[in-house]
């Protein structure tokens, strides 16, 4: 029924908000499958807060009256959409309506408290928990969360996960994957933010110190990992993915998944938990474990994580960074370049998203890391990505490529700005205040971010002499070691040691294309195009030359030409025709700078956003559509 009510709401959900909530609530939906949990929760709340509720009731009603009508309507409709598991409607309200109302009414303040809105949704605790999740996310993103926000957001998200994990049967709730990803991503972000905040002892008031001392479990690393692992286990996601890769049928996978894992809600939460575990393990300094958690997630373009831009970019950023920590630079480069190419292609569709800023910052970090990796392990890399990187970090790249001690500060600066914000699971000893000041004075030296940077740079330091050695050897095919030493103005033994450094800097492990299996698998490989052998005193240089690659260029351009041809064919002829006939697919061709490629891509029917816009333009009518849709006009 809900489905029916919102049948044409997908086009523009906000304009179709129901006038009165009573009539909008389809009978029967309110007694949804998860009603039992609602009962549990209202009962619990009432016991705890009875006095408080009575006291505040009047004040609340006044406050509720002050909430804008738009917002009340939105909340009511949102509640109905969720009760009806109407995913199209939920998506539209989650991605559109919420942000629009935020901009309009809550750009600089909190959304109304969940308790205030309870009467609008019949006290539905599941909905209110979901609402609070959005509420706190807004506080973290746009405002400054205070200690209460931090504690309550933790309690709220735990309540939500508790509800999902500890129910007697799967909760009949279906949320869009974008929301599920955002929810878990935010969960890790808030954990990260809390840990950093907790580590800063100087800024804590005595009340805050007391709160932290009394509640060590809040946002503790253990509890965060516990939530993520529980979601993984509840959904049997690892078993499901393994079965899928082994080629099991859908029925067999559902069998393995069990009653929970076969529900999209649980399956998706489990899947995204794996990605979040990758991130958490990396943050606490364990890149091997990070990659290990993804052993059943194949990094392919069909994988679920690629369906969400933020998740796609985040996954590759963290995988790439983990490889970098293992000294596997070619694998890191592959991960970064893949994500960057993808992002540059998708950019034009996402500028509206509120996450656009953070995704594009993450991409900037990847360019910086790419500069480091391609310097340490030179090799062929996608030209477009490399030139974009040079635009951003050209100067730093040159300094690093020259090598020597001068390069070290540049490496450090790039690493510190581009690495994830490492953290330590160890909390300051708030429970023993007399140790606090000693801790504060010493802990600076132990800052996890600097500690990891130091470790990484110790590796870089070892190979600082490689670029010089490489450029010397490039000049010869064979040379006597003594002669080389005299050219370099160094002792022969020192030169031999530096040659060993180069030898080792040129070697690493790299995963083989399409090999599948664990991300930790890899084969010994040589990077860079220069190698050498030493026989007695004679050094022979072996250079690997790579023929220039033409195929990619020709394929890209042939495909492009094909698309242009298609566009032209599909476009109306530049002659006058009776109005209305010619407007078919090219309504959005005018969308400017992105150019033909985007227009053609949209027209071939990929992205819904473009599709919708095309439809609107078409409706907007004849003449404009005709001239602007005409490729000849440009």
């Amino acid at each position, binding site marked *: 029924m809900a489905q029916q009510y919102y049948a044409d709401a997908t086009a523009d959900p906000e304009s179709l908000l129901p006038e009165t909530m009573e009539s909008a609530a389809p009978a029967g939906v309110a007694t949804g499958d998860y009603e039992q949990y609602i009962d549990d929760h209202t009962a619990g709340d009432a016991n705890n807060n009875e006095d408080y509720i009575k006291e505040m009731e009047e004040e609340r009603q006044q406050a509720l009256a002050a909430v804008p009508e738009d917002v009340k309507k939105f909340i009511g409709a949102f509640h109905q959409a969720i009760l009806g598991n109407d995913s199209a409607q939920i998506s539209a309200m989650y991605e559109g309506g919420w942000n629009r109302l935020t901009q309009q009414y809550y750009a600089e303040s909190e959304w109304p408290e969940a308790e205030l809105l309870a009467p609008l949704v019949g006290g539905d605790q599941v909905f209110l928990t979901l609402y609070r999740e959005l509420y706190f996310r807004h506080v973290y993103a746009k405002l400054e969360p205070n200690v209460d926000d931090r504690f309550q957001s933790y309690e709220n998200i735990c309540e939500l996960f508790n509800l999902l994990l500890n129910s007697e049967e799967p909760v009949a709730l279906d949320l869009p994957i974008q929301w599920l990803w955002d929810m878990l991503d935010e969960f890790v972000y808030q954990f990260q933010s809390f840990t950093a905040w907790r580590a800063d002892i100087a800024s804590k008031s005595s009340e805050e110190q007391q709160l932290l001392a009394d509640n060590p479990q809040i946002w503790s690393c*253990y509890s965060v*990992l516990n939530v993520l692992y529980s979601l993984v*286990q509840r959904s049997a996601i690892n078993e499901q993915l393994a079965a899928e890769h082994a080629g099991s049928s859908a029925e067999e996978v559902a069998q393995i998944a069990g009653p929970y894992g076969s529900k999209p809600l649980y399956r998706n939460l489990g899947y995204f938990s794996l990605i979040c575990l990758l991130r958490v393990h990396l943050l*606490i*300094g*364990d*890149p*091997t*474990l990070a990659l*290990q958690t993804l052993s059943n997630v194949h990094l392919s373009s069909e994988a679920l994580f690629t369906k969400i831009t933020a998740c796609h970019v985040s996954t590759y950023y963290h995988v790439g960074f983990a490889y970098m*920590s*293992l*000294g596997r630079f070619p694998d890191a480069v592959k991960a970064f370049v893949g994500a960057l190419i993808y992002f540059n292609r998708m950019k034009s569709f996402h500028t509206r998203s509120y996450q656009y800023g953070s995704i594009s910052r993450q991409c900037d970090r990847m360019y910086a890391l790419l500069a480091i990796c391609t310097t340490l392990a030179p090799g062929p890399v996608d030209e477009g990505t490399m030139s974009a990187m040079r635009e951003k970090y050209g100067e730093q790249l040159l300094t690093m490529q020259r090598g020597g001690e001068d390069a070290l500060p540049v490496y450090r600066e790039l690493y510190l700005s581009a690495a994830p914000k490492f953290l*330590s*699971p*160890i909390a300051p000893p708030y429970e023993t205040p007399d*140790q606090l000041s*000693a*801790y504060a004075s*010493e802990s600076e*030296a*132990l800052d*996890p971010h600097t*500690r990891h940077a130091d*470790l990484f740079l*110790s*590796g870089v*330091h*070892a190979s600082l002499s490689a670029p010089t050695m490489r450029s010397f050897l490039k000049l010869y095919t064979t040379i006597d070691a003594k002669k080389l030493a005299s050219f370099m103005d160094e002792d022969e033994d020192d030169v031999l*040691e*530096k040659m*060993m*450094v180069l*030898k*080792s*800097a040129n*070697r690493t*492990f790299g995963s083989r294309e399409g090999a599948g299996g*664990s991300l*930790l*698998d*890899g*084969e*010994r490989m040589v990077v860079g195009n220069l190698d*050498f*052998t*030493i026989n*007695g005193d004679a050094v022979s240089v*072996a250079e*690997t*030359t*790579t*023929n*220039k690659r*033409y*195929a990619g260029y020709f*394929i890209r351009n*042939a*495909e492009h030409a*094909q698309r242009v041809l298609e566009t032209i064919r599909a476009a109306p002829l530049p002659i006058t025709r009776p109005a209305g006939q010619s407007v078919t697919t090219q309504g959005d061709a005018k969308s400017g700078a992105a150019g033909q490629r985007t227009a053609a891509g949209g027209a071939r029917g990929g992205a819904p956003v473009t599709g919708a816009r095309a439809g609107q333009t078409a409706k907007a009518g004849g003449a404009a559509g005709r001239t602007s849709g005409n490729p000849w006009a440009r």
Partner: protein
Amino acid sequence: MPSTTSVAPPKNAQEWHNPSFRPEEINALILGVDRYNPSNVGFLEEYLQTQIENGQHDLFANLAILKLHQFNLNMTNQHVVIDILLLALTSAPTIDSQDFNLALALALDRPPASIIQANRDDDDDEEDEVALVVPYLKKCWSLLRECRFREFWQCWKQEEGEGADDFASADEAKAFVEGVNGWQVSGENVAIEGNGDNDVKSSVIKEHVELKQLSKIIGAAAV
């Protein structure tokens, strides 16, 4: 050092992340959530001792010990930490190995020295050995990584004192070298047979186009 030492670098990372000698129980333990269970630490520590006795190294199992230490501050078995670091340092198959740094990253995630001191039992007067040993190990490892082998041996011998001396005679040195797979002494020189790293040849990489890359173009042409 057993005479069967192989000096050729491993061909792939399989033995590194999933060594063939790792017992099934340990494997199940470190791949599951049970790795966070503090009561398993003894089990993992026993396995560490087995590795040391057999001249093996299972980094992933040892990182699981360090992870337990990271999460359980009362679990500070300093000798275990030092053993793990030493084993990672001495077992690195190649100098580009990250094992030592990976272990160090977790081992150094500990509260400041004063807190460790304050939380220690009074009757327990041992020093913070990890803090004492780590700088030395770091120095040794960085000398190795920079291939400054002569300085490394000086540094190593300085600490080890007697017993870590040079070979007693040329014959003993020869015997050691010949014991290593693929090494031969010929006069003054040691000849090392081809191992993939010392017999490289110039080559030309040609472009290779897969049919898959052309699928769009061919598809379009077929319409």
